[in-house]
């Protein structure tokens, strides 16, 4: 039985007990041709010492017999449900396809070749509860391992930003909400090794993939618009910087999962090392392109985001530039972003007011590009009339 436990202040803990159950976590395992690993991934979810979870396993039309492995590993476990797709929707496509089926307040998307440790859910849920006001997501330290499971590094290179530039420890301001089942010593260590990444942060400080636990409402709020069910994009590439800009995040500097690396080609080093690129050229280009979908989402949902964010509207939009180390000009003058702006100009202008919109754009593009943009918008409006 898991519950909110006694906090230092007995009066308040009684109240917390009356509030009912702890947050539930929905795991989402998205598998594509990882028959060799998905079994141990599923097992690692089953071994969580946090009972308030459910798990959806999606198979993206694997061709290596994964489906059978998944059925076998899940067995009859009522906490699991399996969805076998007959078409590969890719990672982001699969998430958007099942997002409405995930019922947990928290969502962890686990790569089907990764591995989480038994304390994973409990630790993440505790940190989500401990931070007053909440965070968009929590990201824990992940060990990098080789294909055969051999340990390679103690953490993903970018985790923690520039040598853990954030203040360590949240004990001073942590809420009293505390989950049972977490030993005193571990609880203390957890709070001591957690850091808050502020919304203004302009880099990448998180582990990849399976180490991140999002709030479901943030995933829904920031949900990208995409016409086709197939959506070739990495979930964290889009969601992590966006969710952080919206509502900050927390880093848990305790190893809670393992991230599996596969034999890479000559253009990428395998274990991540600061100053040495790990992605391939094509991969980097794609991630940069797909990250611009943040701008598309904010333009389409401008009426919602402007109300929620007020003055911070543009600051959040600029995330898509900073996360790729681009200047605002490089980002907003790119053909992709110009196209998005032309398409949604009328809506944006309606929500933000045309003067404010023009001023914001003049700050972000050169005079010449601004004039070109105006011309394109004019002809676009003529066309639609």
């Amino acid at each position: 039985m898991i519950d909110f436990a006694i906090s230092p202040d007995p009066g308040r803990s009684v109240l917390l007990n009356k509030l009912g159950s702890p947050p539930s976590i929905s795991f989402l395992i998205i598998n594509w041709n990882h028959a060799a690993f998905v079994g141990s991934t599923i097992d690692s979810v089953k071994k969580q010492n946090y009972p308030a979870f459910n798990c959806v396993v999606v198979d993206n039309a694997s061709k290596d017999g994964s489906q059978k492995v998944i059925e076998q590993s899940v067995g009859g476990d009522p906490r699991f449900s399996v969805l076998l797709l007959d078409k590969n929707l890719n990672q982001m496509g699969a998430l958007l396809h099942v997002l409405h089926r995930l019922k947990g307040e928290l969502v962890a998307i686990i790569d089907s070749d990764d591995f989480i440790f038994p304390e994973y859910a409990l630790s993440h849920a505790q940190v989500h509860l401990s931070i007053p006001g909440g965070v968009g997501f929590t990201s824990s330290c992940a060990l990098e391992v080789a294909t055969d499971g051999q340990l390679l590094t103690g953490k993903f290179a970018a985790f923690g930003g520039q040598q853990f530039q954030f203040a360590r420890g949240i004990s001073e301001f942590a809420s009293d909400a505390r989950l049972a089942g977490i030993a005193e010593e571990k609880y203390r260590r957890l709070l001591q090794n957690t850091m808050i990444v502020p919304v203004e942060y302009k880099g990448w400080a998180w582990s990849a993939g399976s180490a991140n636990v999002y709030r479901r409402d943030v995933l829904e709020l920031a949900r990208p618009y995409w016409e086709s069910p197939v959506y070739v994009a990495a979930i964290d590439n889009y969601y992590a910087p966006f969710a952080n800009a919206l509502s900050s995040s927390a880093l848990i500097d305790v190893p809670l999962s393992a991230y599996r690396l596969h034999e890479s080609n000559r253009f990428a080093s395998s274990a991540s090392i600061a100053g040495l690129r790990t992605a391939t050229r094509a991969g980097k280009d794609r991630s940069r392109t797909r990250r611009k979908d943040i701008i598309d989402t904010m333009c389409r949902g401008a009426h919602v985001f402007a109300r929620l964010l007020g003055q911070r509207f543009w600051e959040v939009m600029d995330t898509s530039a900073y996360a790729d180390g681009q200047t605002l000009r490089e980002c907003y003058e790119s053909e992709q972003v110009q196209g998005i702006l032309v398409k949604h100009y009328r809506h944006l202008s309606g929500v933000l007011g045309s003067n404010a919109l023009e001023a914001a754009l003049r700050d972000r593009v050169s005079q010449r590009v601004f004039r070109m943009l105006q011309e394109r918008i004019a002809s676009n409006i003529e066309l639609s009339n």
Partner: protein
Amino acid sequence: MFGGELANSRRDGLPDTLPSQNVLVTSPVLLVDSVALDALSGGALKPPLVSFILINWNYGRFVGDAIDSIRAQDYSNFECLIVDNGSTDGSREVYARHVQDDPRFSIECLPENIGQLGAAIWALGRTSGNFVTFVDADDILFPGFASAHLQVHFALPRSVALTSSNVIEFGEAGRVATGGYLYFSRINVGQSKIRGLRSADTTVRFSAITEEVFEKLSRTTAVVDQSEGGWLWSPGSSNMFRRSILKLASFDGHEQGLMRTADGHFNPLCHALGGSALIDLPLSAYRQHGQNYYSVGETVPGVRQGTAAYLAKAEGDYRQTVELLLDRTESFSWLLSDRFWPTVDRLTRVPSSELKKYYSKPATQQVFARHISKLHRQFGDAAVIDHIRERFRVGPAWRIFKNGLTGGISFSFWRLFWATELNRFLSRQKSRRKRRRD
């Protein structure tokens, strides 16, 4: 025999080595957040395998000590490949006697000496550990060598290409001579901005490393960023590399022989790629016996450090490392991004004041001419002209393009090259006139 000597010297108040009484632990236990890795993962995760590559050429009288010291490691998850590099001194009789029936060892005998670097790359293809140490046959590792290096690799605030520990130097009779290696960069340990290890209770822990030893390692370890140059490391045996980085830094076609030391090539290049961590604790012993061919390679035993022949040999060796970078321009320019050209300059191992002279040498120009097509393809007309002209004078630069570019020089390239030259000339004139006016 050596152990006794060292114990004596320690009593004499010489620097402390890593204590390790319990030789041979049966299986390596790793702890994550105080839980054994096995229990945590049900066998899905495994401790890292270390590859020791022991290269011997005619050190039959020492190699037994080296083998014993590897067998005595307190981290048991290793493999050791003994490569006999064409020895003629009866070394081959020694190996089996010391290996006995230890299944972690294998022995390969090469018919002739293909150089230390040649043998090192040859052996990399025949081993599989993700962490690699090349052991010189005349050196000795202390029992805690592997566990300490691994602990540092896993607990550093940032991952690095290689870790390098200090050494105790000792003489032929086994007597300790000094407590540290002269060229091991203590200064860098002191000045580094990234010192120490991550908190002991939240990192992967190797069970052979006690709290006390962890603290000691943390006090004596520092990361040196890839932007720092110079020779930072102890010699040969005191380094532990990540295999992924060694792979990036390896030559093809090494079977024909690379008559140079492994550390002379791998240390500067791997460091330029991923940075180093220095551990200012002696974790191995470096034998001085009047015949150390280090930095020269076994082939030229007559060449002594400081002589002209030695310098010429060293420069040629390092030019080979530079050529590797140029040969794989596409890959390295991507990996290193805007650090590519500074890395080329760095790997010449020539001080920056001497670079002009280095690039004026015909041998250097030949190397660049051989790979100019790749550089051109990667950087495009304007950038490649700038980078080459930054290093070579106009005549040699033009010849590099003329002789090297496959398909010859196009008209537009010709025009751009000489237009750039004209611009350079004019701006030089202008600044000269300005100086005169002032």
